[in-house]
C-alpha cells in the first residue's frame, strides 16, 4: 500500500465528453489533480512531463488502443512502473482477463458513476502492492 493519498491522475481518452465528466468527477468530488490527453500517441510524453501517481487508459482509441499503449509504457523506464487502470465499455469476462494479464491494476466499466469514481480509484490505489 502506497504511503501517500492518491492525488495525481493522468487520463488518456479520445472522447471529450467523457474526459470532461471524469475530470469534473475527480477534481470536484475527488479533489485530485487530473491531466487528460486525447491523442494516445502523445500520451507517454504527457505522462513523463506530468508525473502522475496513477494512469487511466481508455481501451478503444484512434491511432493506438489502450492495451498497446500500456505495452509501450512498459518499454519506457520513466513510465514502466505507473499503475494503470482501464476504463472501458468492453464488458466481457474474457476482455477483463486479457487486461489483468497485461498487468492492469484495475478495471472500471463504462458507464461508471462519476459520484463513485474517486472512491473506486482510491480503493484500487490502496490495494496496490
Amino acid at each position, binding site marked *: 500500500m502506497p504511503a501517500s493519498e492518491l492525488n495525481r491522475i493522468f487520463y488518456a481518452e479520445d472522447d471529450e465528453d467523457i474526459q470532461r465528466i471524469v475530470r469534473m468527477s475527480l477534481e470536484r468530488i475527488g479533489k485530485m489533480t487530473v491531466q487528460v490527453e486525447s491523442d494516445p500517441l502523445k500520451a507517454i510524453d504527457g505522462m513523463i512531463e506530468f508525473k502522475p501517481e496513477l494512469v487511466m487508459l481508455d481501451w478503444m482509441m484512434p491511432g493506438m488502443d489502450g492495451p498497446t499503449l500500456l505495452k509501450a509504457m512498459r518499454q519506457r523506464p520513466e513510465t514502466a512502473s505507473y499503475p494503470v487502470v482501464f476504463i472501458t465499455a468492453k464488458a466481457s469476462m474474457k476482455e477483463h482477463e486479457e487486461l489483468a494479464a497485461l498487468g492492469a491494476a484495475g478495471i472500471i466499466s*463504462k458507464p461508471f458513476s462519476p459520484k463513485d469514481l474517486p472512491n473506486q480509484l482510491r480503493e484500487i490505489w490502496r490495494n496496490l502492492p
Partner: protein
Amino acid sequence: MPNPSQVPPPLTHQPGIVRDAVDRTRVLADQVELLYRQSPVGIAVTVVVGFVVMWELNSARERDLIFMWGALTLMVAIGRAFLAFAYHNAADRDSRPDVWLRRFAIGALATGVNWGLAGAVFFPAHTDEQQVFLAFILAGMAAGGLPIFSAVWWVFAIYAASVVLPFLAVILTYGSRLFYEIAALVPVFLAVNIAVAYRLNRVFVSAYRLRVSYGKLTDDYTLMNQRLERQLIELEEARMQVESSGRKLALFAERAPIAVIELSADGRIQQINREAENLFGYSQGELAGTSASIRDLVHADQHEEFDGRWKRLIEERESLDGFRMRNPRRDGVSLVCEWTVTPLVNAEGTVLSVIAQGRNITQQLEAERLKQEFTSTLSHELRTPLTSIIGSLQLINSGMLGDLNKDQTELTEVAERNGIRLLDLINDILDIEKVESGKLTLFPETIALDELVREALKLNQGFAERYKVKLVAHEPLPALQVHADRKRLLQVMTNLLSNAAKFSPADGEVEVEMREKGGDVLVTVSDRGSGIPENFRARIFGRFAQADSTDTRAKGGTGLGLAICKRMIELMEGTIGFANREGGGTTFWFELPKHVNTSKE
C-alpha cells in the same frame, strides 16, 4: 402368393425305428391287399373243384355226407366272399393290415381244413380210381394254393398243411406199401411248396419295399419341389422389396438437402448426390468411379487432421458426428461443412463403404459472426454516449456543482433514471443474447448464501424506497453455502427484489426467507401485490414478458429480467418458480444445490 392351406408340411427327419415300423405296416398292407385281391379266384376254384368232387363221388352210398361236405364248402366260400367284400370297403385296411391278415388266415385255414376233411372222410370209402382222383385233387388244391396264398408264406403253410396232413394220416392208416411211399413223399412236397412259398414271399416283400421306397422318394421329391417353388416365390418377393427399398434409399439420398457421398474404404468417391454436386461444383461423372478422393474435397490445412480421423474411422469403425471441415469448392472458395461420417460394416467386420453426409454451415457461421459483431458494437457504441449522459446527470444531481431549483432537479432526476433504464435494457438484451447463444460463462465459487441475500437487500433498499416499500429478511437466515456465480446470483436476487418492490402496494413489505430443503437451499421473495394474472402465468419466464403495456409504463423494466433469471438459475443447476401467496400476493422462489464443505477448515 401361395395359399397357406396349400403349403406342404415341412420335411422333418423321422428317426429310423419309426420309419421302419411305418414301412413294415405299409408292406404288410400291400401283401394283405394282394391276398384279398386274389381271394375271388381262390373261392371260385374251390367252389368249382368242390362241385366236381361231389359229382365224382356222388354215386357212392354216403350221399348225406357228400352233401354235408358240399354245404360246408359253400359256407366257407360264402364266408370268405363276405370277408373279401368287407375288406374291400374297410377304412382301416391300410392302418391295421395285421387284423385283416388274421381274418384272412382264418378263412384260408377253414378252406384248407375243409379239403383235408374231404381227404380224410372220402378216401377210405371209395374205389381205387376214385382214391387216385381224390389224391390228385388234393395235391392240385395244395399246389394251387401257392399263387393264391404265397403273398404271406405262413398263410399258405397253414392252408397247405391243413389240406395235406389229414390225408397223410388216412394214408398211413391203410398200411399198403404204395401208400407208405406216397405218405413219405407228401411231407417232402409240402416242405418244398412251403419253401417255394417262403422264397416267393421274400421276393414279394423286397419288391414291395422297393415300391414303397420309390413312392416315398416321389413323395419327398414332390414336397421338395413345392418347397423350392415357394422359396422361389419368396425370393422374388424379397428381390422386389430390396429393389423398392433401394429405390427409396436412392430417392432419399438424391432429394436430400444435404450432401451425401458414398466412399470406398480408401476414401475414393463412389457416388454423390445432387446436393453434393451443387455444393462442390463437380458432377457425379467427374468424381464417382475415378481416382478422386474425399481428401481432395478437404482444405489442405486440414489434411493432417482429416487423415487421423479417417484412419480411426476405418480401423475402429468409429463414426464421426458434427465434424467440421473446410471444403474447397471447384472455384477455390472454401465452404465450412458439418459432416456425419458412418462406416458401413458387414457381418464379418469388413468396411464395405463409408457414407458421408455434409451440411453447408458457411452462411450459418457467417450469420453467427455478424450477430456477435453486432452485439459487441451495440454494447460499445451505446454505452459510450450513455456514459456521458448518465455521468453528466449524476454529477449535476450530486449537488457538487451547485443547487438547481425544484423543477430542474425533478427533470434531471427523470433524465438520469431513464438513462439508467436504457442501460439496463441494453445489459438485459446482451445478457439474454449471451445466455441463448450459450456464450454466458459462469464463474462459480463457494458462496455463503445468507450473506449474499443480506447484501442484495442492502443494494436494493434504495430502489425499494422509491416505491415506499421495505425489504425485510426473516432473520436469522440459516448459514448455508451454495456453489454459484456471485455476480449472476446477485443479479437474480436484484431482479426478484426489484420486481417485488415494484408490484407491492405503498408502505408494504417484501419478505425474504431462506431455508434448507432436502439437498437444496430455498430462497423465497414474497410480496403483497395484486398477484399474477391467470393468462400471464404461462409466459412469465418468457422473453419480453409483461402482464400488460400499461404496467410497463407504470413500473418500468424490460420484460427480460425473469427470462434471464430462469436461465441463470438453470445454468447454476437450480430451479426457479412462483406461487400465489396466502392472503394475497406472490412468492417467487429459487432452489440451488446445497454446497457441502468436504475439506476441513
